[in-house]
C-alpha cells in the first residue's frame, strides 16, 4: 500500500508527471514541520497577521434560546481575510517560499481560499494565479474583485460543471505544466498525499486552541464539536486534537442542497460511495459507471462531490458522525445567528449552526457544545437575499 493512508482511504492517484512534485513537497514538509525557525515564523504570522488565537465565544443568547447545552462559537470568521482558509494558506505559502518557489496557484469555490492565497502571495511577494469555475465567478463577483485587487490573476474554468471540482482539475493540469517554480496551494484536506496531512496539520490550530480555551473557561472538554464539511478542512482542524478524547462527539455537517433524496445534493458521506478521484481514495458522489456526479449546494464552498480521506476514515471507524443539512435549514440558521448573536456566519458555517439547533434540545444543560464558525457571511448576503426573493446590488 502506498503512503498517506487513512485506513483504506487516501493515497496518491495522480499522473506520473506530478509524482516528482508531491515527493519534493513531502520531503520539504517533513523537514520544515520539525524546524524551529519555520514554526516560529508561522506562529508569528498567525499572531500578528491573522490575529490568532481566534476567540472562543460563549453564545449566551443561543444557549438560553435552545434550552440545551452551553454553546460556544469558535470564531474563525474573525481571522484576517474572513475565514479559516488563511491558516492553511500561510503555512503552505511559507513552505513554498522555503522550497524556493516563486509562484503559487490554487483552486477556489466560494472564493475564500482564492482570496486567502492571493493575500499570502501579496504578503510574501509571490506570483499568484487562481482557478475558479465560471459559475462560481458569477456567484461570487466580490471575491473575484478582491483577488484581483490583491494582485492575483483569476482564470475562469468552463469545463464540466464549471464549479469547484473543475477548478481543482484545472489547477492540477496547470501544476503538471509548470512545476519547477510553482507550488499548488491545495485548499482542503483532500488530493494526493501529502496534502490531506499538510492541510490538516496547519488547520489543527483550531482544535488546539479550542482545547486550551475551553479548559480555561470551563475546566473540562466539550461534549460535542460541530463543523461544516465540504472537502473538510475546517472540520478536520476542529476535530483533530479531540480524536483521542472519546468523550467528545465529532460531528461533521454536510451540504444536502435540496435534500439527500434528490439529485441536487453535495452530501458525499450520506449519498456517495467509495471511489478514486482527485488523487485520493475516498467517498464520492458518482453514478453506476463511476462518472463523478454534478453536485449542488447553495454554498459554493461545500459544492464538491468528494470528502477528504481522513474524514472517510473517521466515518468508517465510527469516531465521527456526518449529518446532512439542507439549503433551507442553512439559510434559516444564517438568519438565526445574525439575529440572536449579531454574528453573520458564512453560509458554509451556517450548516453547522443549523445542526446545532436540532441537536441542542436533546442535550443536557450541564453539557458543552462547540460550533466552528469557519467564515463570515458578508460574501453571502446578496445570494441569501436572492434566495429569499429580494434582489440587492453588491
Amino acid at each position, binding site marked *: 500500500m*502506498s*503512503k498517506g493512508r487513512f485506513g483504506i482511504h487516501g*493515497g*496518491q*492517484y*495522480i*499522473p*506520473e*508527471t506530478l*509524482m*516528482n512534485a508531491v515527493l519534493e513537497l513531502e520531503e520539504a514538509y517533513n523537514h520544515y514541520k520539525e524546524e524551529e525557525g519555520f514554526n516560529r515564523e508561522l506562529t508569528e504570522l498567525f499572531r500578528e497577521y491573522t490575529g490568532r488565537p481566534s476567540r472562543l465565544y460563549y453564545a449566551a443568547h443561543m444557549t438560553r434560546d435552545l434550552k440545551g447545552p452551553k454553546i460556544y462559537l469558535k470564531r474563525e470568521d474573525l481571522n484576517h481575510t474572513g475565514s479559516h482558509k488563511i491558516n492553511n494558506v500561510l503555512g503552505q505559502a511559507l513552505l513554498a517560499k522555503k522550497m524556493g518557489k516563486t509562484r503559487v496557484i490554487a483552486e477556489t469555490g466560494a472564493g475564500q481560499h482564492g482570496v486567502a492565497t492571493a493575500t499570502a502571495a501579496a504578503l510574501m511577494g509571490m506570483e499568484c494565479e487562481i482557478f475558479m469555475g465560471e459559475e462560481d465567478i458569477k456567484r461570487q463577483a466580490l471575491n473575484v474583485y478582491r483577488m484581483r485587487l490583491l494582485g492575483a490573476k483569476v482564470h475562469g474554468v468552463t*469545463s*464540466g460543471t464549471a464549479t469547484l*471540482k*473543475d477548478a481543482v*482539475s484545472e489547477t*492540477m*493540469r496547470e501544476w*503538471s*505544466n*509548470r*512545476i*519547477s517554480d510553482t507550488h499548488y496551494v491545495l485548499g482542503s484536506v483532500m488530493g494526493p498525499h501529502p496534502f490531506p496531512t499538510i492541510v490538516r496539520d496547519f488547520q489543527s490550530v483550531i482544535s488546539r486552541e479550542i482545547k486550551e480555551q475551553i479548559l480555561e473557561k470551563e475546566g473540562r472538554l466539550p461534549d460535542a464539536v460541530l463543523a461544516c464539511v465540504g472537502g473538510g478542512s475546517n472540520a478536520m482542524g476542529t476535530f483533530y486534537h479531540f480524536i483521542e478524547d472519546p468523550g467528545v462527539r465529532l460531528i461533521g455537517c454536510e451540504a444536502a442542497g435540496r435534500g439527500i433524496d434528490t439529485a441536487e445534493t453535495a452530501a458525499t458521506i450520506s449519498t456517495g*460511495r*467509495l*471511489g*478514486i*478521484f*482527485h*488523487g485520493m*481514495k475516498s467517498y*464520492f458522489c*458518482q453514478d*453506476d*459507471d*463511476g*462518472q*463523478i456526479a454534478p453536485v449542488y449546494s447553495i454554498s459554493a464552498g461545500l459544492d464538491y462531490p468528494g470528502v477528504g480521506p481522513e474524514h472517510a476514515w473517521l466515518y468508517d471507524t465510527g469516531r465521527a458522525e456526518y449529518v446532512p443539512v439542507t439549503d433551507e435549514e442553512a439559510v434559516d440558521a444564517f438568519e438565526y445567528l445574525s439575529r440572536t448573536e449579531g454574528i453573520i456566519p458564512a453560509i458554509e458555517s451556517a450548516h453547522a449552526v443549523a445542526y446545532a439547533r436540532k441537536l441542542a434540545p436533546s442535550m443536557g444543560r450541564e453539557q458543552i457544545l462547540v460550533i466552528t464558525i469557519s467564515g463570515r457571511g458578508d460574501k453571502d448576503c446578496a445570494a441569501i437575499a436572492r434566495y429569499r426573493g429580494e434582489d440587492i446590488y453588491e
Partner: protein
Amino acid sequence: MSNRIRSVFENGKAFLPFITCGDPSLEATEEMVYAMAEAQADLIVLGIPFSDPTAEGPVIQAANARALTGGATTDGIFAMVERIRRHTVIPLAFMTYANVVFSYRQKGAGEEQPGGIRAFIRRAAGAGVDALILPDVPFEEREEFALPCRENGIAFILQAAPAPGERISGIVQAAEGFVYCVPAPGVRRTEGMEVLVRQIRQEREIPCVIDTGSFPRSEADSLARLADGVMAGTGVVELCQRYGKGSASHVRDYVRRKKEAIGIL
C-alpha cells in the same frame, strides 16, 4: 500477457492511435477501429470516457464530454469490443481513469455481484483487451490494478517520466508490455525524453512508447526515431471532432500516412 501485445513491436516502429469510445457514437468508434486496423495500426488505444479527465488537455476533455453526452457506458464499450474481436486480431488497450475501473458495476448484475477492479478486468480480458493504461495510477498505486491484470493476462502499462534514476529503474523493472514515456514540464522537454529513453534501455530491453503530439514537428520526429512506438493522443480525436460520424475514411488515411511517415524516419 497476451501474444498480441508481444506482436505490436515485431514489425518495425509501431504506431498506436488513440480514440475516445463513443465520440460521437459507439457505432462510429467501431467503424473507425476497423479503418485503423485496415490502415495497419499496430495497437489501438480505446479511451473509456470519464467525466473529469484531470490529465487531459482541452481536445480530449471535449471528446470525453461528447462521448458521455452521446450515451457511452462502460458496459456498452465492453459489448463493442466483443463485436470488434469477432472481426480483427489487432491488439487493443483500454485507457481510462482509475475510478472507471474501481467503481465498475455490471448493469443488472445486482448488489450481490461484486463489481470493482476484478470484475472490470475479468470482463475486459473476456472481451479480448490486451492492455490497460490508467493515467492517474502511478507506480506507487499500481498493485491493486496490476495484480488482477496479471491474473487475467492483461498487460498493465506503467508510465515513466523524467525522474531520479532510482524511480525510473523501479518502474522499468516492474513494467509489462511496454513503457509509456510521458514528458515532464519545463524548457528541456525533448532532451528530458531522450535521457529517459536511454535510462530505460540501460535498465532493460523493453519497448518505449512516446506520445509525440505535444512536441514541435522537428522534435517530434527525432523522438519518434528514438522510440519503439509512437502514440497519437489527439490526431484521431481531432478528426472525430471535425467529421463526426463520417470520420472513418479520414481516420484510415491519417493512420496510413502516419504509419508511412514513422516507417521512413
